[in-house]
Protein backbone atom coordinates (compact mmCIF):
# COMPACT_ATOMS: atom_id res chain seq x y z
CA UNK A 1 0.00 0.00 0.00
CA UNK A 2 1.37 3.43 -0.94
CA UNK A 3 1.87 5.79 1.96
CA UNK A 4 -0.25 8.91 2.13
CA UNK A 5 1.86 11.85 1.00
CA UNK A 6 1.30 15.52 1.63
CA UNK A 7 1.18 17.81 -1.38
CA UNK A 8 4.71 19.11 -0.83
CA UNK A 9 6.12 15.59 -0.26
CA UNK A 10 4.38 14.41 -3.44
CA UNK A 11 5.84 17.37 -5.34
CA UNK A 12 9.34 16.57 -4.10
CA UNK A 13 8.89 12.90 -5.00
CA UNK A 14 7.72 13.93 -8.46
CA UNK A 15 10.81 16.14 -8.84
CA UNK A 16 13.08 13.22 -7.95
CA UNK A 17 11.22 11.00 -10.44
CA UNK A 18 11.76 13.64 -13.14
CA UNK A 19 15.52 13.51 -12.60
CA UNK A 20 16.18 16.35 -10.15
CA UNK A 21 18.74 14.66 -8.02
CA UNK A 22 20.21 16.77 -5.23
CA UNK A 23 18.74 18.92 -2.49
CA UNK A 24 19.33 22.38 -3.87
CA UNK A 25 18.29 21.35 -7.38
CA UNK A 26 15.02 19.90 -6.03
CA UNK A 27 14.48 23.07 -4.03
CA UNK A 28 14.86 25.20 -7.15
CA UNK A 29 12.66 22.98 -9.31
CA UNK A 30 9.79 22.79 -6.83
CA UNK A 31 10.07 26.36 -5.58
CA UNK A 32 9.63 25.08 -2.04
CA UNK A 33 11.68 26.58 0.80
CA UNK A 34 14.72 24.72 2.12
CA UNK A 35 12.98 24.19 5.46
CA UNK A 36 10.40 22.03 3.67
CA UNK A 37 12.58 20.26 1.11
CA UNK A 38 15.43 18.88 3.22
CA UNK A 39 13.39 17.37 6.08
CA UNK A 40 10.92 16.01 3.50
CA UNK A 41 13.76 14.30 1.64
CA UNK A 42 14.86 12.69 4.92
CA UNK A 43 11.32 11.45 5.54
CA UNK A 44 11.01 10.09 2.01
CA UNK A 45 14.32 8.30 2.46
CA UNK A 46 13.26 6.89 5.83
CA UNK A 47 10.06 5.58 4.21
CA UNK A 48 12.18 4.04 1.42
CA UNK A 49 10.49 6.09 -1.30
CA UNK A 50 13.81 7.58 -2.36
CA UNK A 51 17.36 6.35 -1.92
CA UNK A 52 20.45 8.50 -1.63
CA UNK A 53 23.96 7.83 -2.80
CA UNK A 54 27.14 9.86 -3.04
CA UNK A 55 28.43 10.47 -6.53
CA UNK A 56 31.92 9.08 -7.23
CA UNK A 57 34.66 11.36 -5.88
CA UNK A 58 36.40 11.26 -9.28
CA UNK A 59 33.34 12.71 -11.08
CA UNK A 60 33.12 15.61 -8.63
CA UNK A 61 36.88 16.21 -8.73
CA UNK A 62 36.79 16.36 -12.54
CA UNK A 63 34.18 19.09 -12.32
CA UNK A 64 36.03 20.86 -9.53
CA UNK A 65 33.23 20.74 -6.97
CA UNK A 66 32.43 18.76 -3.82
CA UNK A 67 30.71 15.40 -4.18
CA UNK A 68 26.94 15.55 -4.34
CA UNK A 69 24.49 13.35 -2.54
CA UNK A 70 22.13 12.19 -5.29
CA UNK A 71 18.59 11.03 -4.66
CA UNK A 72 16.86 8.46 -6.82
CA UNK A 73 13.35 7.11 -6.72
CA UNK A 74 12.80 3.52 -5.54
CA UNK A 75 10.20 1.01 -6.71
CA UNK A 76 8.01 1.83 -3.73
CA UNK A 77 8.57 5.48 -4.50
CA UNK A 78 7.40 4.97 -8.07
CA UNK A 79 4.18 3.36 -6.87
CA UNK A 80 3.67 6.20 -4.37
CA UNK A 81 4.41 8.73 -7.10
CA UNK A 82 1.75 7.20 -9.36
CA UNK A 83 -0.76 7.20 -6.52
CA UNK A 84 0.09 10.81 -5.68
CA UNK A 85 -0.31 11.84 -9.33
CA UNK A 86 -3.81 10.38 -9.21
CA UNK A 87 -4.51 12.23 -6.01
CA UNK A 88 -2.98 15.54 -7.14
CA UNK A 89 -3.56 15.61 -10.94
CA UNK A 90 -1.90 18.99 -11.46
CA UNK A 91 1.31 17.90 -9.78
CA UNK A 92 3.28 17.22 -12.94
CA UNK A 93 2.38 20.61 -14.39
CA UNK A 94 4.03 22.35 -11.46
CA UNK A 95 7.43 21.01 -12.43
CA UNK A 96 9.44 21.70 -15.54
CA UNK A 97 10.84 18.58 -17.21
CA UNK A 98 14.58 18.36 -16.62
CA UNK A 99 16.48 18.96 -19.83
CA UNK A 100 20.07 18.08 -18.85
Amino acid at each position, binding site marked *: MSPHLSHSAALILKAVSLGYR*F*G*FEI*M*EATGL*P*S*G*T*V*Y*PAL*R*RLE*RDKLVASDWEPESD*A*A*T*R*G*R*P*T*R*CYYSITETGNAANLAATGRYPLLAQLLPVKTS
Partner: protein
Amino acid sequence: MSGPTPSATSADCNLLRWVQALVPKVQREGWLRYWRAELLHVRTLRPAHGRRDLALGLILDAAWLRSESLRIQSQGDAGWCLMLLAGVAILAAIPAVIIAGSLEAFIHSLAFWLPSFIFGSLLVVVASHLTSAIPVQTPALPLTLRIKSCVFYAGKIALLLPITFLLSADLAAPLHPTTSFFAFMVQSLLFALLALVALQWAILDGILRCKHCLRPLAEPIRVGRPSHNFLEWNGTELLCAEGHGLLSLPEIETSSSQPSRWLSQTHR
Protein backbone atom coordinates in the same frame (compact mmCIF):
# COMPACT_ATOMS: atom_id res chain seq x y z
CA MET B 1 35.87 21.76 -16.43
CA SER B 2 38.29 20.81 -13.67
CA GLY B 3 40.11 22.53 -10.89
CA PRO B 4 40.61 22.50 -7.15
CA THR B 5 37.49 21.77 -5.13
CA PRO B 6 36.32 25.02 -3.50
CA SER B 7 36.26 25.06 0.28
CA ALA B 8 33.61 26.37 2.62
CA THR B 9 33.72 30.01 3.71
CA SER B 10 34.24 30.87 7.36
CA ALA B 11 30.59 31.93 7.64
CA ASP B 12 29.50 28.50 6.34
CA CYS B 13 31.87 26.81 8.77
CA ASN B 14 30.47 28.82 11.68
CA LEU B 15 26.91 27.98 10.71
CA LEU B 16 27.75 24.28 10.46
CA ARG B 17 29.67 24.35 13.74
CA TRP B 18 26.71 25.85 15.63
CA VAL B 19 24.06 23.62 14.17
CA GLN B 20 26.01 20.33 14.19
CA ALA B 21 25.43 19.98 17.94
CA LEU B 22 21.80 19.18 17.10
CA VAL B 23 22.75 16.22 14.93
CA PRO B 24 23.24 12.81 16.61
CA LYS B 25 26.95 11.98 16.85
CA VAL B 26 26.81 8.91 14.61
CA GLN B 27 25.26 10.89 11.76
CA ARG B 28 27.30 14.07 12.23
CA GLU B 29 30.09 13.34 9.79
CA GLY B 30 27.72 12.47 6.97
CA TRP B 31 25.56 15.48 7.76
CA LEU B 32 28.55 17.85 7.64
CA ARG B 33 29.68 16.41 4.32
CA TYR B 34 26.16 16.74 2.90
CA TRP B 35 25.72 20.34 3.99
CA ARG B 36 29.22 21.48 3.05
CA ALA B 37 28.39 20.31 -0.46
CA GLU B 38 24.94 21.92 -0.49
CA LEU B 39 26.25 25.27 0.73
CA LEU B 40 29.00 25.24 -1.87
CA HIS B 41 26.51 24.42 -4.59
CA VAL B 42 24.43 27.44 -3.69
CA ARG B 43 27.50 29.63 -3.79
CA THR B 44 28.78 28.29 -7.08
CA LEU B 45 25.51 27.61 -8.93
CA ARG B 46 23.40 30.52 -7.70
CA PRO B 47 25.55 33.23 -6.15
CA ALA B 48 22.44 35.42 -5.91
CA HIS B 49 20.97 32.96 -3.42
CA GLY B 50 22.25 33.70 0.02
CA ARG B 51 23.40 31.18 2.57
CA ARG B 52 20.37 32.43 4.46
CA ASP B 53 18.10 30.60 1.97
CA LEU B 54 19.54 27.30 3.08
CA ALA B 55 20.02 28.12 6.76
CA LEU B 56 16.46 27.20 7.72
CA GLY B 57 16.68 23.92 5.80
CA LEU B 58 19.99 23.16 7.45
CA ILE B 59 18.63 23.79 10.96
CA LEU B 60 15.38 21.91 10.35
CA ASP B 61 17.29 19.02 8.78
CA ALA B 62 19.49 18.74 11.88
CA ALA B 63 16.44 19.02 14.14
CA TRP B 64 14.67 16.31 12.14
CA LEU B 65 17.63 13.95 12.51
CA ARG B 66 17.70 14.57 16.26
CA SER B 67 13.97 14.06 16.72
CA GLU B 68 14.03 10.92 14.59
CA SER B 69 16.92 9.54 16.61
CA LEU B 70 15.03 10.26 19.86
CA ARG B 71 11.91 8.64 18.42
CA ILE B 72 13.81 5.49 17.47
CA GLN B 73 15.65 5.34 20.80
CA SER B 74 12.55 5.75 22.91
CA GLN B 75 10.22 3.64 20.81
CA GLY B 76 8.78 1.00 23.06
CA ASP B 77 11.59 0.96 25.61
CA ALA B 78 10.93 0.62 29.32
CA GLY B 79 11.18 4.35 30.08
CA TRP B 80 8.79 5.16 27.25
CA CYS B 81 6.27 2.60 28.51
CA LEU B 82 6.40 4.00 32.06
CA MET B 83 6.07 7.57 30.79
CA LEU B 84 3.06 6.57 28.74
CA LEU B 85 1.45 4.90 31.75
CA ALA B 86 2.18 8.00 33.87
CA GLY B 87 0.45 10.09 31.20
CA VAL B 88 -2.58 7.77 31.29
CA ALA B 89 -2.63 8.03 35.11
CA ILE B 90 -2.76 11.83 34.86
CA LEU B 91 -5.54 11.63 32.26
CA ALA B 92 -7.49 9.20 34.43
CA ALA B 93 -7.13 11.53 37.42
CA ILE B 94 -8.57 14.57 35.60
CA PRO B 95 -12.25 13.41 35.58
CA ALA B 96 -11.89 12.33 39.23
CA VAL B 97 -10.61 15.80 40.19
CA ILE B 98 -13.44 17.46 38.21
CA ILE B 99 -16.04 15.25 39.90
CA ALA B 100 -14.52 15.94 43.34
CA GLY B 101 -14.81 19.67 42.68
CA SER B 102 -11.22 20.64 43.50
CA LEU B 103 -7.78 19.10 43.87
CA GLU B 104 -8.05 19.45 47.65
CA ALA B 105 -11.35 17.58 47.73
CA PHE B 106 -9.87 14.91 45.46
CA ILE B 107 -6.89 14.41 47.79
CA HIS B 108 -9.29 14.28 50.75
CA SER B 109 -11.37 11.60 49.00
CA LEU B 110 -8.20 9.58 48.32
CA ALA B 111 -7.67 9.23 52.06
CA PHE B 112 -11.16 7.71 52.27
CA TRP B 113 -10.51 5.28 49.42
CA LEU B 114 -6.98 4.32 50.47
CA PRO B 115 -7.79 1.23 52.64
CA SER B 116 -10.03 -0.32 49.97
CA PHE B 117 -7.43 0.49 47.29
CA ILE B 118 -4.63 -1.21 49.24
CA PHE B 119 -6.76 -4.24 50.11
CA GLY B 120 -8.09 -4.58 46.56
CA SER B 121 -4.62 -4.14 45.07
CA LEU B 122 -3.13 -6.87 47.25
CA LEU B 123 -5.91 -9.27 46.30
CA VAL B 124 -5.56 -8.52 42.61
CA VAL B 125 -1.76 -8.83 42.62
CA VAL B 126 -1.88 -12.19 44.39
CA ALA B 127 -4.73 -13.47 42.18
CA SER B 128 -3.08 -12.44 38.93
CA HIS B 129 0.24 -14.04 39.89
CA LEU B 130 -1.48 -17.26 40.87
CA THR B 131 -3.51 -17.43 37.68
CA SER B 132 -0.92 -16.40 35.11
CA ALA B 133 0.81 -19.51 33.91
CA ILE B 134 3.29 -18.75 31.16
CA PRO B 135 6.60 -19.68 32.76
CA VAL B 136 9.58 -18.78 30.63
CA GLN B 137 12.87 -20.63 31.02
CA THR B 138 15.50 -17.94 31.21
CA PRO B 139 19.23 -18.55 31.56
CA ALA B 140 20.90 -16.91 34.54
CA LEU B 141 21.04 -13.22 33.76
CA PRO B 142 23.40 -10.70 35.38
CA LEU B 143 22.09 -9.15 38.60
CA THR B 144 21.78 -5.68 37.07
CA LEU B 145 19.50 -7.00 34.32
CA ARG B 146 17.33 -8.84 36.82
CA ILE B 147 17.05 -5.71 38.98
CA LYS B 148 16.23 -3.59 35.92
CA SER B 149 13.51 -6.02 34.89
CA CYS B 150 12.05 -6.14 38.43
CA VAL B 151 12.08 -2.33 38.75
CA PHE B 152 10.31 -2.03 35.39
CA TYR B 153 7.68 -4.59 36.37
CA ALA B 154 7.16 -2.94 39.77
CA GLY B 155 6.89 0.47 38.07
CA LYS B 156 4.26 -0.85 35.69
CA ILE B 157 2.20 -2.31 38.53
CA ALA B 158 2.64 0.85 40.63
CA LEU B 159 1.15 2.87 37.77
CA LEU B 160 -1.45 0.37 36.54
CA LEU B 161 -3.15 -0.06 39.91
CA PRO B 162 -3.85 3.68 40.44
CA ILE B 163 -4.90 3.97 36.76
CA THR B 164 -7.46 1.18 37.08
CA PHE B 165 -8.61 2.51 40.44
CA LEU B 166 -9.11 6.01 39.04
CA LEU B 167 -10.86 4.64 35.96
CA SER B 168 -13.21 2.59 38.12
CA ALA B 169 -13.90 5.72 40.22
CA ASP B 170 -14.59 7.71 37.02
CA LEU B 171 -16.96 5.03 35.74
CA ALA B 172 -18.80 4.61 39.05
CA ALA B 173 -19.05 8.36 39.67
CA PRO B 174 -22.55 8.77 38.16
CA LEU B 175 -23.91 6.28 40.75
CA HIS B 176 -22.80 8.24 43.84
CA PRO B 177 -25.85 10.48 44.13
CA THR B 178 -28.22 7.47 44.33
CA THR B 179 -26.65 5.21 46.93
CA SER B 180 -23.08 5.30 48.10
CA PHE B 181 -22.91 1.60 49.14
CA PHE B 182 -24.07 0.44 45.71
CA ALA B 183 -21.56 2.80 44.12
CA PHE B 184 -18.82 1.43 46.40
CA MET B 185 -19.65 -2.13 45.39
CA VAL B 186 -19.75 -1.29 41.69
CA GLN B 187 -16.49 0.57 41.91
CA SER B 188 -14.77 -2.24 43.82
CA LEU B 189 -15.89 -4.80 41.25
CA LEU B 190 -14.85 -2.57 38.37
CA PHE B 191 -11.50 -1.98 40.00
CA ALA B 192 -10.92 -5.72 40.51
CA LEU B 193 -11.90 -6.48 36.93
CA LEU B 194 -9.83 -3.70 35.33
CA ALA B 195 -6.83 -4.35 37.58
CA LEU B 196 -6.86 -8.08 36.79
CA VAL B 197 -6.87 -7.36 33.06
CA ALA B 198 -4.15 -4.71 33.47
CA LEU B 199 -1.93 -6.99 35.52
CA GLN B 200 -2.33 -9.85 33.06
CA TRP B 201 -1.21 -7.41 30.38
CA ALA B 202 1.77 -6.36 32.52
CA ILE B 203 2.87 -9.97 32.92
CA LEU B 204 2.40 -10.76 29.22
CA ASP B 205 4.18 -7.55 28.26
CA GLY B 206 7.11 -8.56 30.47
CA ILE B 207 7.30 -11.94 28.75
CA LEU B 208 7.18 -10.40 25.27
CA ARG B 209 10.06 -8.03 25.96
CA CYS B 210 13.77 -8.59 25.52
CA LYS B 211 15.33 -9.70 28.81
CA HIS B 212 18.34 -7.45 28.18
CA CYS B 213 17.09 -4.13 26.79
CA LEU B 214 13.39 -4.48 27.78
CA ARG B 215 12.25 -3.44 24.32
CA PRO B 216 9.26 -5.26 22.82
CA LEU B 217 10.22 -8.32 20.81
CA ALA B 218 9.45 -8.12 17.12
CA GLU B 219 9.21 -10.16 13.95
CA PRO B 220 7.13 -13.12 15.15
CA ILE B 221 7.91 -16.15 13.03
CA ARG B 222 5.85 -19.31 13.04
CA VAL B 223 7.96 -22.42 13.38
CA GLY B 224 6.80 -25.98 12.73
CA ARG B 225 3.55 -27.37 11.38
CA PRO B 226 0.37 -26.95 13.43
CA SER B 227 -1.00 -30.22 11.99
CA HIS B 228 1.82 -32.09 13.74
CA ASN B 229 0.98 -30.76 17.19
CA PHE B 230 1.43 -34.07 19.00
CA LEU B 231 4.40 -35.30 17.03
CA GLU B 232 6.77 -32.37 16.94
CA TRP B 233 7.24 -28.90 18.31
CA ASN B 234 5.55 -25.94 16.72
CA GLY B 235 5.07 -22.43 17.91
CA THR B 236 6.24 -18.86 17.47
CA GLU B 237 9.65 -17.28 17.78
CA LEU B 238 10.11 -13.59 18.47
CA LEU B 239 13.34 -11.68 18.00
CA CYS B 240 14.92 -8.76 19.80
CA ALA B 241 15.53 -6.06 17.18
CA GLU B 242 18.82 -5.22 18.93
CA GLY B 243 20.01 -8.80 18.54
CA HIS B 244 20.04 -9.75 22.23
CA GLY B 245 18.18 -13.01 21.74
CA LEU B 246 14.94 -14.72 20.85
CA LEU B 247 11.88 -15.96 22.67
CA SER B 248 10.51 -19.34 21.73
CA LEU B 249 6.81 -19.80 22.53
CA PRO B 250 5.23 -23.22 21.89
CA GLU B 251 1.74 -23.34 20.42
CA ILE B 252 0.53 -25.64 23.19
CA GLU B 253 2.25 -26.04 26.56
CA THR B 254 2.44 -29.76 27.39
CA SER B 255 4.59 -31.74 29.80
CA SER B 256 6.24 -33.52 26.88
CA SER B 257 7.04 -30.47 24.74
CA GLN B 258 9.68 -27.86 25.42
CA PRO B 259 8.36 -24.90 27.43
CA SER B 260 8.61 -21.22 26.51
CA ARG B 261 12.22 -20.18 26.70
CA TRP B 262 14.44 -17.21 26.18
CA LEU B 263 17.58 -17.87 24.16
CA SER B 264 20.11 -15.22 24.94
CA GLN B 265 22.69 -14.33 22.30
CA THR B 266 24.89 -12.13 24.43
CA HIS B 267 25.01 -13.82 27.84
CA ARG B 268 25.28 -17.56 27.82
